């Protein structure tokens, strides 16, 4: 699988992502600078976490206008696979490649803690190594992860099976109003969404930081292993 990781000024989880990808593919992904106006041949583009442009104005707003995003739109239009994590998810919503927006966390504080995610949609390139209803642990680290969208949009996402992950407790119980299991207050406890063609996935938590037992577990690995299986034909 040929993967590329986009680096914007202020991106800071590109190395984490590279480590995770390398550990499942055996080869280092290429780093793509935000100013580039053409893309190499790639199976997967990852928009990693961090604080592109300092999170100033709105998280992801300025990165969404980077030259490389034009290429990424074309890549998406041709059916390319894109994973956006944390700031990457915010950038995908700012560019309109994914619906909705991410507001300040309900408690108005930055949150850095483990959370539990329930897999809502199996069989996508991002979730094929889980079953629907599986629960896994992953760190999250963000100040603006509170997912919102208008009611029509949310109904459509729910109806068409485009919710990838939901925040839950360790047993998989979802309670939108519970700040312990739905820490940032996201609508319908939505933690990750898919594009209509299911080839773009955006999520707030960081599966890339849980791929090595040394760091406390490998709960995040199935996502990356699944991508490799799906994209290497």
């Amino acid at each position, binding site marked *: 699988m040929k993967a590329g990781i986009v680096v914007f000024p202020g991106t800071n989880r590109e190395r984490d992502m590279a480590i995770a990808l390398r550990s499942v593919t055996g080869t280092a992904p290429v780093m793509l600078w935000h100013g580039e106006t053409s893309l190499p041949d790639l199976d997967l583009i990852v928009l990693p976490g961090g604080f592109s442009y300092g999170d100033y*104005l709105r998280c992801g*707003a*300025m990165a969404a*206008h980077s030259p490389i995003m034009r290429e990424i739109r074309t890549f998406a239009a041709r059916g390319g696979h894109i994973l956006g994590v944390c700031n990457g998810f915010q950038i995908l919503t700012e560019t309109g490649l994914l619906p909705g927006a991410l*507001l300040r*966390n309900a408690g108005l504080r930055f949150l850095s803690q483990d959370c539990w995610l329930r897999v809502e949609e199996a069989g996508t390139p991002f979730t094929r190594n889980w079953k629907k209803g599986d629960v896994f642990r992953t760190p999250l680290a963000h100040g603006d992860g509170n997912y*919102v969208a*208008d009611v029509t949009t949310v109904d459509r996402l729910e109806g068409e099976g485009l919710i990838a992950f939901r925040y839950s407790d360790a047993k998989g119980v979802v309670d939108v109003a519970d700040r312990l299991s739905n820490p940032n207050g996201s609508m319908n406890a939505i933690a990750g969404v898919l594009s209509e063609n299911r080839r773009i996935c955006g999520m707030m938590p960081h599966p890339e930081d849980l791929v090595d037992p040394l760091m406390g577990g490998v709960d995040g690995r199935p996502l990356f292993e699944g991508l490799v299986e799906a994209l290497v034909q």
Partner: protein
Amino acid sequence: MKLRVTVSLKDGVLDPQGKAIGHALHTLGFVEAGTVRVSKVIEIEVNSTDRAQAEQRGREMAEALLANLVIEDFSVEVVS
């Protein structure tokens, strides 16, 4: 000339910051405080002599970058 672009959350989008401020005001004894909404004001010095054109450019800036129309509304004024 100076443009003032005000960006606010759309009606119906929950404003957690406004809610928290309202709560804090009550705690501090400002019991008369009702709904609180927080907006951003972006003031931009522009090199222009044509007010109407400046305002038009301000709208373009807002649409392109300053506001996220999925969740926000904006207004533009030329202030000097």
